[in-house]
């Protein structure tokens, strides 16, 4: 009897479990892909995890509101929390760590935070939490606080120069810029400043990817002092800012000498265009240096340094962190300082941000250039026998003079040879012939080319633009022929049985046209257009017997053809 | 540019498996006794 009851209850329990289990299993959502941890706007908050010390955390990280504390300790000053060393506040935390090791650091953190909180609460002031859970919040576990890197661009640089000048009456770059004399015995005297040798902070304060014996020596010292780019720049900037903040506040310039995180780390960066007007820092560099590597095969290049300054955001974007001339580190054979890259590659490497060719290729990816250029394979020194003009464009060998070709114009075009409008009839079975505004496009391209100094310089003559579409067509040869350089001259309508990879006419058109439209961001007639569902219509005007009708007809045919084949008969659902 | 190559240790679990086997061998003794216990 009793046992019967038990069985009954057990079976009920099982029934419930089964039904509930089935329900939940059926409604389970796939967990195949992991989702991004949520990012929050870093409003002067800091995520304290220090995984480089603690490794895997036992408790969730702490989202620390730095802004609040800054507000609270206005009077006391930063050194209440941050350690101070010979008048310079080092912006790291905790103030004092007794000895090495995880636990020591952890305790230091807890002591410094909690003690202070306790203290101020005993003085019954409004203060922060003292219990674990109030700082280590489970729900903030996955949150990422990322501060965008601050870019000390020319605008900011220029501003600092001016301000400091009016402060001290003369411009003293030594306030920020310094170099480290590795041979100096006395540590305190090792930091020296010498005009004209300014470098980027990254030169010494960014570790890891540095080359050359001397520099590595310097960086090791910097590393020993824990002056990576982050702490170095904070120390450098903030100390100075703190020094002058007060008096600017008196003057009523609230924005001057910012000390809050979000003031500098805005995530907003000035574009080249915005920076164009700013005067670049003068490190007595030449305007048009003549680059001529001794006993190199190529003629020298007169390099328009000035215009390139105007077209780049930082010096670093060409010179790496050091502001030396290229050939100091890149010799004909390559040296360790230059990462073993020889001078030819240093200038011509296609995929580097620092080389000429690389940077120019980046430029070619810009909307207005990419239309033509994404079809043209990138060229570097490894390209077999490039045209003579291609090299001489830069390697003129003429010292101190750059022959700027005059802007292109369509004036000289033979109007009856160069059609105003071309009709393409390849698909005329399905569509009306599509009209191709040949001349307008040329004009457009000419305009684009003329707008950019670089384009004007390298395109040279109108023929270059034609080659954007009429690739592989040689001007002289075309001149003699009386037929225009049609696509169908090379691209056959059918597949080439021998070489299936050869582009046939149909795809040649579509890829050329649509590719260009895509790259130049011309919505009309680009494959982006397919989103809106307005597809062939943009280029091919519909005609009777077009796709829709054809679909209909074909459908009937299939149905008919299937009728007499029982096994293949298809029945619509 | 795609995911890095990471070494996947296919034998990572062997140790645990052997542990389970040991546990099993011990438990089976008790269980066997339990099964063959004289019915009361």
């Amino acid at each position, binding site marked *: 009897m009793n*046992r*019967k009851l038990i*069985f009954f209850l*057990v*079976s009920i329990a*099982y029934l419930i*479990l*089964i039904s509930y*289990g*089935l329900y*939940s*299993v*059926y*409604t*389970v*959502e*796939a*967990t*195949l892909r992991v989702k991004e941890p949520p990012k929050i706007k870093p409003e002067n908050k800091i995520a304290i995890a220090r995984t480089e010390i603690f490794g895997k955390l036992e408790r969730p990280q702490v989202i620390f509101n730095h802004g609040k504390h800054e507000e609270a300790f206005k009077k006391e000053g930063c050194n209440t929390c941050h350690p101070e060393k010979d008048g310079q506040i080092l912006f790291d935390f905790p103030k004092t760590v007794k000895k090495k090791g995880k636990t020591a650091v952890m305790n230091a953190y807890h002591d410094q935070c909690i003690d202070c909180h306790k203290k101020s609460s005993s003085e019954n002031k409004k203060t922060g939490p003292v219990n674990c859970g109030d700082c280590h919040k489970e729900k903030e576990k996955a949150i990422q606080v990322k501060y965008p890197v601050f870019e000390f661009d020319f605008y900011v640089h220029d501003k600092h120069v001016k301000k400091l000048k009016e402060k001290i009456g003369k411009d003293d770059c030594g306030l920020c810029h310094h170099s480290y004399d590795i041979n100096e015995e006395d540590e305190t005297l090792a930091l020296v400043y010498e005009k004209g040798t300014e470098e980027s902070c990254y030169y010494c304060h960014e570790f890891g990817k540095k080359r050359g014996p001397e520099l590595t020596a310097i960086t090791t010292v910097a590393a020993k002092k824990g002056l990576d780019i982050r702490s170095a720049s904070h120390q450098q900037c903030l100390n100075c800012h703190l020094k002058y903040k007060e008096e600017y506040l008196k003057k009523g310039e609230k924005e001057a000498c910012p000390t809050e995180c979000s003031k500098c780390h805005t995530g907003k960066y000035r574009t080249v265009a915005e920076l164009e007007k700013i005067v670049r820092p003068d490190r007595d560099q030449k305007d048009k240096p003549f680059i001529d590597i001794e006993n190199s095969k190529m003629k020298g290049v007169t390099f328009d340094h000035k215009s390139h300054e105007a077209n780049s955001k930082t010096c670093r974007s060409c010179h790496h962190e050091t502001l030396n001339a290229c050939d100091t580190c890149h010799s004909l054979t390559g040296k360790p300082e230059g990462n073993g890259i020889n001078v030819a590659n240093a200038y011509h490497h296609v995929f580097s941000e620092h080389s000429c060719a690389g940077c120019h290729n980046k430029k070619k990816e810009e909307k207005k250039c990419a239309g033509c250029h994404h079809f043209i394979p990138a060229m570097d020194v490894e390209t077999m026998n490039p045209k003579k003009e291609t090299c001489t464009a830069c390697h003129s060998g003429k010292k101190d003079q750059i022959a700027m070709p005059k802007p292109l114009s369509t004036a000289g075009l033979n109007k009856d040879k160069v059609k105003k409008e071309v009709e393409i009839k390849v698909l005329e079975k399905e569509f009306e012939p599509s009209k191709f505004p040949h001349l307008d496009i040329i004009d457009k391209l000419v305009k684009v080319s003329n707008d950019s100094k670089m384009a004007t310089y390298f395109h040279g003559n109108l023929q270059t633009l034609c080659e954007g579409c009429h690739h592989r067509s040689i001007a002289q040869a075309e001149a003699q022929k009386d037929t225009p350089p049609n696509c169908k001259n090379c691209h056959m309508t059918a597949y080439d049985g021998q070489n299936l990879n050869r582009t046939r006419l149909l795809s040649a058109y579509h890829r050329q046209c649509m590719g260009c439209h895509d790259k130049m961001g011309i919505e009309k007639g680009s494959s982006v257009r397919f989103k809106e569902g307005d597809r062939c219509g943009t280029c091919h005007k519909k005609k009777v017997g077009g796709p829709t009708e054809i679909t209909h007809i074909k459908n009937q045919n299939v149905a008919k053809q299937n009728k007499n084949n029982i096994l293949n008969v298809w029945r619509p659902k | 540019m795609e995911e890095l190559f990471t070494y996947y240790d296919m034998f*990572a*679990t062997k140790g*645990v*498996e052997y542990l*389970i*086997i040991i546990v*099993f061998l011990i438990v*089976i003794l008790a*269980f*066997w006794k*339990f*099964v*063959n*216990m004289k*019915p*009361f």
Partner: protein
Amino acid sequence: MAGEKLETVEIVKEKDESPNIKNLGDFWNFLKKELIPRGNIGTPFNVISLPIMLLGYVFIVLRLAYGLGKPVTNLNQEYPWGLWIGFDVVTGVAFAGGAYVLCFIVYVLRAEKYHPIIRATVLNGFLAYLFYAGAIVLDIGRWWNIYNPMVGNNFGVNAVMFLVAWHFFLYMIAALIEFSPTIAEWLGMKRLRKILGAMTLGAVIFGITLSTLHQSGLGALMMMAKSKIHPLWFTEFIPILYFVSSIFAGLSLVIFEGSISHKVFGPQIDEEHHKSYDDIVIGLARICAVAMFGYFFLKAILLVHEHALPYLNSTMGFWYLFEVIGFVLVPCFMFVSGAQQKNLSTIKFAAILTMLGIILNRLNYTFIAYNWFVPLSEKYWPAPMELIITASIILTEIWAFRWMVNRMPVLRKPPAWAIEKH
């Protein structure tokens, strides 16, 4: 068999003189005589089962006419296999496993103690194959080609399905031979009985080998669904799991079925069998328990081996644990304790739990944990017609079972002339 009507249990007195059949004519008359239903017809069981069966047959016709898809079944492109394979075939075969396990115990290990139930079990197994595995014909889309694996010139010898098909086919023959002495006794064919009796051991051993292979083979069918079955369930050792689980699946069905048939056909069973019965069930319970114990540890090892531990802490993980603990470990100990206290009701309850567990396990492989990541809209669950057809198949099998038990010396003692010592 669907035509014939049921009798309540009524004592059939020992047939001491069995029919002597000379030619087909006699046989035909005899069969006609036997086909006539006995006893009263309106028992509740019939009243319920008969309409369901008939309805099922109608639906089967529908399925043949309109194809597999809706409205007959809910199968879709995501779930090619549903209830008919998952339950009828895979689970049904697992339940039929009792036959080969008992044959092993009785004929190979000569544990005479279990001899009284061997015939019922073999008959049960045979019918299970005939009907449940026969259900595959319904599920096969192009059933008119069913002979292709047996006849023709393209045998996919590399296919697991090929093995399974052949093993089904051969095992049915083996099971038939194992059972055939009973039929011979029923028809009173003394010579045939002798011959067949001699063939038994061979048939048994052949049968056991086949069973080992196709029980695991059913698991091996799932091997190439690696990317679809949830990692907790998919391992390279599915075949072994299937084989081991088929042992206690079959035995617990034997316990369950035995307990029922002892109620229904009680009067046919002679005294000493009745006496020994409890002992038999307890023995079976012990075997089940040990098998399940081993199975549980296999599961545990594989869980680690497949690096599947992290998945445990998820909905599927809980479902998995529920299956392994709730339907393997718990019944395992219930079996043991039941055996300890000689308490049949506990054992029966455990048996039922085990069977449920097996069903869940097999269904997990075929459609619950299979393609577990597709949205609910594309998930599969059995359609009513599917269920009814399944039910009607099972009921038909029960009817056939009952018919044979009532006619042939399955539970009751074989005729005197047939009792030979082995």
